[in-house]
């Protein structure tokens, strides 16, 4: 269970979160769409425990161990190999040496990166780097995935692969919160949709049977109204 209640946070006079509340159950994917500066990243950081909100609270069952983070930055060390990075991050999540070695091999195989495991991260292309970052996020088998603009910088093929992978993860019963400014990228994956503007959810509803095009049209209307 993921629960956010009355979140409020401001940076000086700029309000990043203004009364945001929602809950997610296993198998739900919330796609949050909003323009740059709407407060999406702040919301994800609050959910991840990176920012203490000035008001309200956020709770993820299982705490930090239950969270996997995929952003547009990989959090990987350039001069370590992909495998060394995974083993390091696995150790922080309390996986035993044998378990993290096995999980590293497993997630790399799943992401079709087994042959790249021994390569230093700095040598990877943007698409491969993003896959390595996903491998890192999945290593400890998190119940909740927080995705902050995960498609940024990916070419069409890599973005398509990422969408397929996220669809598989969603089918596996994980909770996911995806924040992006690009409606076309995230709408297909969502079970629930929120539009965020100036820190507020101006729309929050189950996706239902709406197509990506209908959601995009609703998003444009909601942004124009403000």
């Amino acid at each position, binding site marked *: 269970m993921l629960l956010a209640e009355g979140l409020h946070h401001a940076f000086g006079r700029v309000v990043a979160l203004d009364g945001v509340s929602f809950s997610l159950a296993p198998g739900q994917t919330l796609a949050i769409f909003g323009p740059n500066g709407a407060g999406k990243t702040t919301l994800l*950081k609050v959910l*991840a*425990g*990176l*920012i*203490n909100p000035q008001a309200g609270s956020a709770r993820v069952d299982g*705490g*930090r*161990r239950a*969270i996997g*983070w995929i*952003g547009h*930055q*990989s*959090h*990987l*060390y*350039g*001069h*370590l190999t992909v495998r*060394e990075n995974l083993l*390091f*991050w696995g*150790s*922080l*999540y*309390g996986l035993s040496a044998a378990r993290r070695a096995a999980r590293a091999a497993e997630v790399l195989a799943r992401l079709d990166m087994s042959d790249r495991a021994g390569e230093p*991260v700095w040598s990877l292309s943007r698409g491969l780097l993003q896959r390595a970052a996903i491998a*890192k996020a999945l290593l400890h088998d998190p119940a909740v995935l927080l995705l902050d603009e995960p498609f940024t910088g990916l070419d069409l093929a890599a973005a398509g692969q990422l969408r397929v992978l996220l669809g598989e993860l969603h089918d596996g019963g994980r909770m996911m919160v995806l924040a992006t400014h690009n409606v076309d990228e995230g709408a297909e994956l969502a079970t629930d949709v929120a539009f965020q503007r100036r820190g507020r959810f101006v729309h929050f509803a189950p996706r239902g049977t709406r197509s990506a095009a209908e959601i995009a049209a609703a998003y444009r209307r909601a942004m124009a109204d403000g």
Partner: protein
Amino acid sequence: MAELLRQAWAVARKDLLLEFRTRTAIVSAVVFTALVLTVFNFGRDPTAVSALDLAPTILWVTFTFAAMLALNRAFQLELENQALEGLLVSPLSRTSLYWGKLLANLAFVAVVESVGLPLFVLFFNVPVGRVLLPLVAVIALATLGFVAVGTLFSALVIRTRFAELLLVVLLLPFLVPPLIGAVQVTARLFGDRPLSEAVGYLKLLAAYDIVFVSLASFLFRFTVDE
């Protein structure tokens, strides 16, 4: 406690592995140490002040500035691909992160000092053989104090502009007490004075270590959390 230490070791091991791979900081610090000692060697008038009188000051000024290079790089490593954000999202405790960085910095500075000390003996012809063990103990005692404070400030300034300059400005006033203690004890060792004369300064160094390692371990979370 075992979990804290295990995580701290994982962080330290990762930092040392990264340094071993790149070697840029350690080579820079060692070359810097050699250059400073060379400048002091040729920049003084040997007929005015004897080498033995100047030696303790020169030794500690050199070690202090070489350590600054190590402290500057401690959190620079975490800026690559925003790895610091990944560390803060993970279940890694802030205390473990601090202790891990402290451990890696101590190892780094110890390597620089172990190269610098023979060079110092070579340049200044100071007979350290008979006082080597107590000298190493004093170096360890003083180094722990200023690396403990420096690691904290290194985290504090990392997100600021001109972090390298700011670190020096913030750190140097805090290094005055251990520097006074270290120079005074070293002067007595080089002058063949009994160690009992330096007990007060040794107590100062030990108290500084206890206070600042404890204080920095507690305050560290406030420097890295948003």
